[in-house]
């Protein structure tokens, strides 16, 4: 029978690792003495948390790119919007503890002589409201953008480039101090989240665990979506869009559902990222960031979900390590890694592992790389 297993071997291992991290890393950090070799040092916890948030972004991206064939070069925008929504909540939580001690206005508004909180900041003092916005704002943007673009059948590089234009426009907008989001400095110097100090090691550990759970949750959700019949339709659209239309599927609706879902996941990832790194600013919207996210997915292995998360983790860990040990050479290492991965590992790290161990993943959904892409250079009609 050709029913895809909801969870395959790689998925099981992935979930087990993520959940084990959720439990063991906070435990080791909080309970073990610092000199124990099993102790995870304090600074590692938010760092790992950041990787997991990026892994979640990569997962969301893989959903649209790996399964639906939409190469979004603007997914960082949804991530950043989610991050801003969370950042606004965290700013409101500072209350009168800012340097000017203004109970309502964040510091950056005080010294630019704002007298009133702008309307779009209202409500962000409530956690539930912020949480809602974390999902709704990226979702709504993706919905509007997708509704326009997919209905007009903007595809391929055209779509990629306008997603890039979208995130670029948002970056410029958020850089503007007049927008009321803190301009280039963004939002920073957070104090509390839900009453717990963000700097406390306990809060950090909890945020880490939460991120791990969120990653596991989004993996399960994505997996459920791609193994459902909708998932099959989406892959069918990726491989033969007009065939799907002539069979009667409204391609734009399917793309819209997946795109919006993906944007929401990216928003949640952004919301988890912000309290752990302690700052959100417009450079998160930079097109280069979105391109990097695409690269994580490609390094890990497109269309595998697990690979996307793994790629994000590996590339970012590599970046942390390289920028520390090879501060003036690390771009060579990173650039070389990208080139070599493309040339030697067309199916990404996950592809390498399955090839090396000869695992035949018969039940796995088809990875799109090898014969799927028609052997013509897409834009050169």
């Amino acid at each position, binding site marked *: 029978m050709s029913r895809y297993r909801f969870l395959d071997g790689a998925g099981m291992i992935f979930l087990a690792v993520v959940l084990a991290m959720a439990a063991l890393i906070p435990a080791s950090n909080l309970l073990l003495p610092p000199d124990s070799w099993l102790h995870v040092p304090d600074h590692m916890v938010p760092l790992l948390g950041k990787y997991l948030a990026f892994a979640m972004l990569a997962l969301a991206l893989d959903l649209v790119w790996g399964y639906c064939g939409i190469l979004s070069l603007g997914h960082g925008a949804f991530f950043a919007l989610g991050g801003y929504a969370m950042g606004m909540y965290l700013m409101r939580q500072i209350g009168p503890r800012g340097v000017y001690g203004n109970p309502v206005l964040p510091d950056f508004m005080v010294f630019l002589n704002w007298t009133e909180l702008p309307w779009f900041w209202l409500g962000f003092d409530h956690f539930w409201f912020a949480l809602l916005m974390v999902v709704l704002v990226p979702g709504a943007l993706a919905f509007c953008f997708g509704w326009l673009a997919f209905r007009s059948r903007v595809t391929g590089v055209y779509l990629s480039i306008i997603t890039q234009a979208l995130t670029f426009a948002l970056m410029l907008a958020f850089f503007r101090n007049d927008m009321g989001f803190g301009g280039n400095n963004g939002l920073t110097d957070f104090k509390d989240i839900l009453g717990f100090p963000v700097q406390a090691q306990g809060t950090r550990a909890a945020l880490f665990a939460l991120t791990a759970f969120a990653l596991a949750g989004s993996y399960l959700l994505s997996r459920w979506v791609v193994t459902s*019949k909708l998932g099959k339709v989406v892959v069918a659209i990726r491989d*033969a869009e007009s065939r799907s239309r002539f069979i009667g599927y409204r391609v734009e609706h399917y793309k819209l559902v997946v795109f919006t879902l993906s944007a929401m996941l990216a928003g949640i990832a952004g919301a988890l990222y912000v309290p752990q790194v302690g700052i959100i600013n417009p450079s998160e919207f930079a097109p280069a960031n979105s391109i990097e996210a695409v690269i994580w997915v490609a390094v890990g292995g497109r269309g595998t979900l697990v690979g996307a998360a793994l790629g994000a983790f590996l590339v970012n860990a590599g970046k942390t390590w390289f920028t520390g040990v090879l501060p003036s050479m690390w771009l060579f290492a990173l650039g070389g890694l990208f080139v070599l991965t493309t040339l030697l590992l067309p199916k990404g790290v996950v592809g390498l592992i399955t090839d090396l161990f000869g695992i035949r993943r018969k039940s796995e959904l088809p990875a799109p790389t090898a014969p799927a892409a028609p052997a013509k250079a897409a834009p050169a009609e």
Partner: protein
Amino acid sequence: MAIGGLTTNALLYLDNVSVTFDGFRALNALSLSIDAQEMRAIIGPNGAGKTTMMDVITGKTRPNQGVAVFEASHDLTKLDEASIAELGIGRKFQTPTVFEMHTVEDNILLALKTDRRPFPTLFSKRTKAEKERIDALLERVRLTGSRDRKAGELSHGQKQWLEIGMLLAQEPKLLLVDEPAAGMTDQETADTADLLREIAKTASVVVVEHDMVFVRDLGVKVTCLHEGSVLAEGSLDAVSTNERVVEVYLGR
């Protein structure tokens, strides 16, 4: 029912349809009518407008002028591909187009006539009835043994048949088939003709074909297109002796 001031009983009715691409007239005041359960063969030289005609019928191309009506009540020039497919018009491409990354069975499953909206699709579970229908269709297109293989691994002829199977799964009222015999062995060609004749018992079929042997095999009314309009129409014998047809297409 009347659209554009026309009254008709035909299943598919095209009248005075013209399509222009950058000054090139792909269809030039084409008129054509297909009755229910009719099988029709369309012949004509390259560039005669055969594929463009199918594009107009399936909503891929919008005509610059003219009427395209289905079941006397649906204006095909206003609907998109998915709605037209849901009305019951199926289309097979010139080169077989199947979902290569899916298994043969999944190809059929995706084509089954069901609710096509995203959310019902997301939550859908395969029913027993669906399974039986898939089994029957696979049997009919002789792919039962390959049901778990990836469609991309099939031979050319098998892909053609899979595509026809997918069309049948849609339960169409009208089937548009573009060169079904291309690249097939003689035996496969004959089998395909049988299959199409069988399908024509329940649905209308329009076959575009170059292979005259195959067309003769089908034994149906023939329409010859040239430069975007109908050159001749009638039995194959009548059409193939038409002087104009011989001149532009069959050759002397």
